[in-house]
């Protein structure tokens, strides 16, 4: 297999290009996706390749253009809608909850909405409290949609390709700090499995469950645990936030009997709490220690660098949570 070195940003672009080139139903729509190249430069160059009909700049009307994506999907297209950030996506929540996630059910199975919505999420760039939250758990709460959080370059491309083949609405959350991440991946753009979590590092002492932008922090924490504390952490990348793959988590717990869940979202009502509850329900007997959570501190994201760092999960906080456990 020949490989290619891409950034996460280029990988998303490669998937968009592949979709646009191979399926005439696919089009990209969103704020500044055209001449500007996307707020995170993901669609840079695609306007020249595919023209303004298929790389379609939308005005600042999140509700209307997300809703238009739903309508176009009903009308036989395969729209990819880019929303600039997850905070801005709140303006479109009516269309997401009341239409995208609902129309299939409410029509008794007559309609499907093959829509892909992508957006940047997450903190770490000092953009403060209206650009940087991690609200993926809100989307993961909604039956009728699929929620994906690609954490690797391969997933950045392959998950979008898989989403373009899905008959139901798929939401993809791209952590903004991941866009420059580099990776060597198969040259051939192929869809990846979007049903299962992945074990990114094998270990037998503790299971660290995470996703998206927190994966790198968890792998760094695992290195520290191995080098300084002689503990072998197993790191699970959730990949898909809805539906959750509890099988992979429970299989790991059968080995390690301890779990730390790491998520940038706020702890209360978040994805970490959901996973923890499912572990209690399905794997209580596997546990030798209470499930621990390392989450975003419950504040609106602050601007100052030291405060922002303190508000987010860090490798140090993950290591500290593991060290609390008795082995």
């Amino acid at each position, binding site marked *: 297999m020949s490989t290619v070195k891409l950034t996460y940003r280029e990988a998303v672009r490669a998937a968009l290009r592949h979709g646009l080139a191979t399926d005439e*139903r696919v*089009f990209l729509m969103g704020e500044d996706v055209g001449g500007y190249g996307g707020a995170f430069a993901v669609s840079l160059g695609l306007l020249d390749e595919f023209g303004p*009909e*298929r790389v379609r700049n*939308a*005005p600042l*009307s999140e*509700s*209307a*253009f*997300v*809703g*238009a*994506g*739903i*309508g*176009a*999907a*009903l*009308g*036989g*297209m*395969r*729209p990819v809608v880019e929303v600039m950030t997850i905070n801005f996506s709140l303006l479109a929540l*009516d*269309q997401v909850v*009341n*239409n995208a996630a609902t*129309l*299939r*059910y*409410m*029509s*008794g*199975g*007559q*309609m*499907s909405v*093959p829509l892909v919505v992508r957006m940047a999420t997450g903190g770490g760039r000092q953009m403060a409290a209206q650009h940087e939250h991690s609200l993926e758990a809100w989307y993961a709460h909604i*039956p*009728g949609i*699929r929620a994906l959080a690609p954490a690797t370059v391969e997933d950045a491309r392959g998950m979008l390709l898989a989403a373009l083949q899905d*008959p*139901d609405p798929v939401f993809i959350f791209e952590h903004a700090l991941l866009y420059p991440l580099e990776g060597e991946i198969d040259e051939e753009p192929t869809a990846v499995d979007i049903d299962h979590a992945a074990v990114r590092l094998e270990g037998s002492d503790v299971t660290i469950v995470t996703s998206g932008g927190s994966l790198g922090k968890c792998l760094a924490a695992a290195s520290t645990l191995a080098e300084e504390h002689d503990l072998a952490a197993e790191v699970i990348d959730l990949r898909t936030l809805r539906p959750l793959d509890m099988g992979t988590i429970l299989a790991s717990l059968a080995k390690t009997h301890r779990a730390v869940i790491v998520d940038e979202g706020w702890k209360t009502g978040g994805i970490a709490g959901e996973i923890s509850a499912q572990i209690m329900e399905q794997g209580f007997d596997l546990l030798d220690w209470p499930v621990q959570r390392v989450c975003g501190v419950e504040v609106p994201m602050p601007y100052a660098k030291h405060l922002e760092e303190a508000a987010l999960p860090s490798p140090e906080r993950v290591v500290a949570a593991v060290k609390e456990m008795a082995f």
Partner: protein
Amino acid sequence: MSAPARRPTARKPTPRARSTRPGPEQLDGEHALHLLREMIRIRRFEERAAEQYSLTRIRGFLHLYIGEEAVGVGVMQALTPDDAVVATYREHGQALARGLPPASLMSEMFGKATGCSRDRGGSMHFFDVPRRFYGGNAIVGGGLPIAIGLALADKLQSQQRVTACFFGDGAVAEGEFHESLNLAALWQLPVLFVCENNEYAMGTSIADELAQPDIHLRAESYGIPAESVDGTDVVAVEAAARKAAEEVRKGLGPRFLEIHTYRFRAHSMADPDLYRTKEEVEQHRRDQDPIALFEERLRVQKLLTDDELEAIESEVATELDAAIAAAEAAPIEPVEDLTRFVYTEPDGAGATT
């Protein structure tokens, strides 16, 4: 609770033009009877639905279209089976005029598996994809972006089709209304916007809700040609809709109709109707009933006899008796199927594309 004080600056809508009745032009007899029949069919359907609600066979919210029949019937004449319809929670009239079978609608409201939405929608959420009837949207203004998308899909696929989007005067205060009109005009999309202005957003009169109550002017501010139409006159509605739909179909961009109408019944069966006077409602029922006015016009033009009217009523009654009987006899959805249709099933069942 007292009524909210009206702002001293609140604007009243410009008094609307009424068609001269009886109409000056001689109508085509066969088509005129079709229009009358369609309106009567909706009214009787709604009366029977209210009855069934009182008998607790229909539950949930029930919003009746009585008084507004000329709007749905008139507009639907301008559409072909290939066109699309997006409607609101007060959509029984549009659904019937679009050709959805009354038995499937009644079954839906009875909560039966044979309903047009397989009993998951109810009165507010009728769907029929083969007839391109896309709901049944109960979020005020929420259907407009969907209509934009359906029209965008048609434009991208070079289809000469119209998407007719019905909404009420209440939707005009929503952000989605403005976002959608802007998009439709910006991208010159084939949408026929149909604002059913029945003067009340639930219990709030238009003068208390809209700083600019002449709604067609708002559409014009987006560069969308708009017309104000007398919604008590089914012929006027049809003529305006045909002209607008034809322009949309030719690729001339979106068109907007503000159709003045009035609902004779409360907002829903749960509404005690305290915000308007009995006299106001009675005056509309007496002087502005679209069905009575049309009947009178047809009689003057010698296009309607007592026998013909009786035949229409009798056919409609037979059809509705059968619809109710079918709904009563229909099976319910098995509870085991509660979670079906949240996602496309593994064998791809239900995927439309």
